[in-house]
């Protein structure tokens, strides 16, 4: 008599679908021979991460992830790929000369991580959040009270970084 496979609940099934999608896109980012395909798979992985955030009831973060990561960073990456063409012929391998050792190191790291994760009894259930409690108001409140210094510092960092990026990529 074979052991019965536990049937996942609806939430678990949704998580499994989104996690498989994200993991598959993530793997294809680093394996794909065509650089533009890698960028598109990165967009897919970022969408998957946003879906995971929604599953974790961090909806504002999910929207922020889509707006910033996909809308800004992934778009920047596509722009940079277009501006630095000539490397996407696809005849040669996309891996460099240390890729074998890199793969081995990454695999060892993954196995070690799983070993560590196994040792801790993680919780199976999360505390329920009250249905009418909005996290967004609390988030905005935290940004201007408890974390105001970090908030202002990140704003300054973004401004300086973007000015610097424009200066670096300027046409001379």
């Amino acid at each position, binding site marked *: 008599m074979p052991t019965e496979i536990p049937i996942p609940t609806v939430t678990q099934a949704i998580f499994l679908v989104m996690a498989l999608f994200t993991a598959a896109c993530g793997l294809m980012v680093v394996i794909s021979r065509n650089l533009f395909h890698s960028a598109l798979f990165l967009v897919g992985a970022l969408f998957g991460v946003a879906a995971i955030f929604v599953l974790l009831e961090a909806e504002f973060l999910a929207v922020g992830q889509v707006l910033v990561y996909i809308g800004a960073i992934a778009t920047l990456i596509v722009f940079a790929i277009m501006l*630095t063409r000539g490397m996407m012929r696809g005849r040669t391998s996309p891996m460099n000369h240390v890729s074998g050792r890199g793969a081995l190191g990454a695999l060892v790291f993954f196995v070690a991580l799983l070993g560590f994760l196994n040792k801790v009894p993680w919780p199976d259930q999360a505390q329920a959040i009250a249905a009418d409690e909005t996290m967004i108001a609390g988030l905005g409140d935290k940004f201007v009270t408890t974390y105001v210094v970090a908030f202002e510092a990140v704003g300054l960092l973004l401004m300086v970084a973007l000015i610097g990026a424009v200066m670096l990529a300027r046409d001379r």
Partner: protein
Amino acid sequence: MVPLSWYLILAAFLFTCGLFGALARRNAIAVLMGIELMLNAANINLVAFWRYSDTVTDLAGQVFALFIIAVAAAEAAVGLALIIAVYRKRKTVNVEELDLLAG
């Protein structure tokens, strides 16, 4: 409910993919994409730990994750600007050919 360990395993796998991409790819932009994957994996970890913690109303995990997104945006902008500048000068973004500082 989804056990916390499932989120952590997904984050670990994404981080490993990003690590392999950053180590093993030839194009500098592909290396940067690996770095973005690693940052996203850390974000998944943070938000999962926030959700399964005892102080969910403190929102510390979400705030941290939002800061990571902002810093990742700044870092990606500067990194890509550097890559474009290097391409203009050396006509290549192959990390094996950018070895002026190598011994």
